[in-house]
């Protein structure tokens, strides 16, 4: 009903500067707040007006500031019909499709961990969390799932 699995550990970069609207690796860096742009294996997630998380770029050719953060965080995929309910156990945002439509991404918190949350499909989410907070996040999600009777697909 909701499954948490590690996402592909591809390259990650932080892009900073006035890069909104720029073409980069086959996609347009999103200028609109809290939106993600995807092109094949690559994605650019708006984190702030001069800050994007780039996923899947082997190298980034741009005049703006780029920092390799490939090992800074870990990515997880959370999917299933009760995924949003599970996330509501720790995320204070309104995650209804109207308030948080597919393609929305944002930094936020999950209980005491900061995360980047990206809705990739109605019932599929990508979560980025700083490496040292990953065990906390996974254990917390497991605890919330158990307490609310939200099992994985196998169960």
């Amino acid at each position, binding site marked *: 009903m909701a499954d948490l699995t590690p996402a592909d*550990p591809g390259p990650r970069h*932080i892009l*900073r*500067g006035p890069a909104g609207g720029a073409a980069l690796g086959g996609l347009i860096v999103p200028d609109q707040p809290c939106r993600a742009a995807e092109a094949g294996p690559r994605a650019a997630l708006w984190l702030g007006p*001069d*800050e994007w998380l780039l996923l899947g770029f082997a190298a980034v050719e741009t005049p703006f*500031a*780029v*920092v*390799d*953060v*490939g*090992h*800074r*965080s870990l990515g997880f995929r959370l999917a299933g019909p009760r995924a949003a*309910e599970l996330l*509501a*156990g*720790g*995320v*204070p*945002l*309104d995650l*209804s499709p109207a*308030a948080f439509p597919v393609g929305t991404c944002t930094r936020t918190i999950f*209980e*005491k*961990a900061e995360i980047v949350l990206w809705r990739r499909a109605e019932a599929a989410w990508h979560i980025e969390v*700083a*490496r*040292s*907070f990953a*065990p*906390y996040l996974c*254990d*917390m999600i497991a*605890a*919330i799932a*158990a*307490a*609310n*009777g939200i099992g994985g697909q196998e169960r």
Partner: protein
Amino acid sequence: MTAFRLPSGGRIDRGRTLRFRFDGRSYTGYPGDTLASALLANGVHLMGRSFKYHRPRGPVSAGAEEPNALVAVGAGARHTPNLRATQVELYDGLSATSQNRWPSLAFDAGAAGGLLAPLLGAGFYYKTFMAPGGAWHRLYEPAIRRAAGLGTVPGGPDPDTYTQRYAHCDVLVVGAGPAGLAAALAASANGARVFLVDEQAECGGGLLAEPEALIEGKAAAAWLAEALAALAARPGVTILPRTTAFGCFAQNFVGLAERLTDHLAAPLPGLARERLWKLRAGRVVLATGAIERPLVFAANDRPGIMLAGAARGYLARWAVKPGTRAVLAVADDSGYAAARDLARAGVAIAAIAELRPHVACETFGLPVRPATAVVGSIGRLRVAAADLRPIGGDSVGGGGVERVPCDLLLMAGGWTPSLHLFSQARGKPVFDAARAMYLPGEHRPGEAPDGLASAGACRGVFGLAACLEDGYAAGEARGGPATGRRFAVSGDLPPAGGFEGLVPGSPARKAFVDFQNDVQAADITQAVREGFRSIEHVKRYTTTGMATDQGKTSNINALAIAAGALGRPMPAVGLTTFRMPYTPVTFGSFAGHARGELFEPVRRTPMHAWAQARGAVFEDVGQWQRAHHFPAPGEAAADAVARECRAVRQRAGLFDASTLGKIEVVGPDAAAFLDRLYTNSWARLAPGRCRYGLMLNEAGFVMDDGVVGRLAADRFHVTTTSSGAAAVLHHMEDYLQTEFSDLRCWLTSVTEQWAVIAVQGPRARAIVAPLVEGVDLAAFAHMSVAECRVAGFPARLFRVSFTGELGFEINVPAGHGQAVWEAVWAQGKAHGLEPYGTEAMHVLRAEKGYIVVGQDTDGTVTPDDLGLSWAIGKAKPDFVGRRSLTRPDMLAEGRMQLVGLLTDAASAPLEEGAQITAAPPRTGMAAIGHVTSAYRSATLGRPIALALLADGRARIGQTVHIPMPGGSLAATVAGPVFHDPEGARLDG
């Protein structure tokens, strides 16, 4: 069939019999019962002893307002005290006990405390039990605390699981009575997200106890079932029974406590017992109803005396006759609905004492005595008779008292709108003088949040039709046309009338106002006599309306009695503030999953597993777990630290510095930005070089430090203290976004990108060299940085030292940290490499006089105080904190300066934080400083300490004194660098 259960009716499931125990005795009940209804069905009214006087008490209500019937359920760690028996749902095997009695409920030794009653009146703890001095704490308080009070705390950690959830909706409706149901129907008509919550197991509120009423031609129960089915069918609607809206906070943020398993005999293991909802609503409709008021007369607290509406509820919902022969004390029309229902159920109505001179509503041919008060009762563990006395006009009449035998005495004193949540949301109640009730005021801007409306009885609207219509109008969307929806209702008897204060002709003694806190009318008049004027002061002095009860049944009567004693109108006396929670919420719900391992995130470095396998002892440093020392089997901590220090000084040590904060500063103006944020100059730092950076706040005090490496003209790798990482990034972003927004540079936290492996000691170069590709280590000077490969992985190699020895810090991507660490370890074995922990790191840096920000500094320390003036770029016109360094008090004499302290070589290390005095300490002497760091130095063979000392540098060579637990120690003031002051060892 139990003695007082009616043969049919009620909302119970008679197909199944439940067994339960109360105080060890076995009883039976049905699914749908509460503990209170099941006990009443068995003829048990005595359910508790009162808080102060140990008076026998039974349930006065049938709901959340119950002040008397507080019981404990469960045993051991699952023992839950102070539950209202009126809300405890029955399940098979339930075991409950009464509270505050010994040895038994029927024979309570503490009731002798009733003999002490004259000593335990209002404010007794301020006045009695005072002498002899100190006896209060030693003798009286412990004894009184044992005698008074509620239940006992459970015996172990809570074994249950609690969960929490955020939720968002368009409209939250609190209370699923007629007004709330209608509001939810209206609000959800167009697909809006609606939450309907009710504290009871069953939705319906007052509709559950309306056997006669018809709504739109249907019995109330049938209409209720249809309404709930219609709501449940709407996809946007969430209905939560057993859910208490306990707190209403800013901007319609409402706390909901949902009880998930307490009503189940065998809950599924692992599922949460309770769920705390943190709900944000666009609009809130409060349909919280009204609470019936008791009448205040002498001995109005015996078992068998209850609210008229509660008796109606027991009849209609649980088919329980609460007695066989009833007297009713009535001041409100709704009392006659109770009398009618009781009479139809076969309860004899002995008398209806009507306080008012005339009754306007139908009285169903019952024996009504107008202008008559109940002024007392008799009985021991159950009421046996009521004392009736005629009243004439406004004054006490001359008629004598008539004693009417009964086993049930009902009070219909009128209804108090439930304003708790409205008040918590900062709504301002206003007094309706005509009806003597506080009602929700207008929601003026600044006084109550937008989108908070009250509907039905909680705003003084009574009667089924009016409540349904009021609720429907409140639920309709804002901005749209009001439909003016009407509801056809017949057969209900709306409340009208009411009385507040002490019943005329009754003594004030033992006339209870607040049952839970055992406050009598006499206590309130006494408080006024003693000079208390504000109701807030009367409340605290008498304890009326305090604690978990929050004045649900008592506050209006208390207010009226206080107003009467003061000779002022009720609104002039004021209304006490309602505090959250509405009813008690478990600590478990508030804690949620934040217990044990999940209380705080535990952050571990990439090399944690290696240290763990090696037997490291860890310490918590903020959220991080860091290896403190690596003891050999059987080795004491101090010995391990000394061994680790010697290894670093003589051969080499390996240290996990991954928790260091790291920020990558990138952009054409990166150097200019660092020039403004650090005291040092960065413009002429060549790429490939590092510098120790000192960061001040604008007030000129040291806030952080760390090594900064320049990777390229436009790229710096900044390190911060482990604990300061987030604050430094915040500070930098602040200046970059606001004051220095002209600069083109950007910041990225890379703390977790890089694992940091420090290799320190004279053999460090020999250990690291074979692993490094792309840097000539022979030419790699102290304070250099290079991007290269180490052990085959991309790396940023720093040559830096926090020990005073030749040292390298290898930064590798975190995922490769363990592999590189193991490669260095393998390489170092032949050189005598040993891992060292944070304690050895601290000793080594203190031997060199290197400060730790936050330990040797405290937010009042300048660079000069630390002897770090050399780190200030004198030629820079400005940097954050510079202007403050020339304020007069920053240049004054007597500032605390960092020095070393040397005690006798054989003495124990000083205590960090210990005060310093100029002469051997004695009472009245002022301290001239304090110890900031203190260790035993294995290298020097003596204890060393760093201290902040007034005019410290001028005192070098002098003797100071440090008071310690075993007597004071003398110390010689020294410079802060104890080891290798020339820095000769940095090159190995």
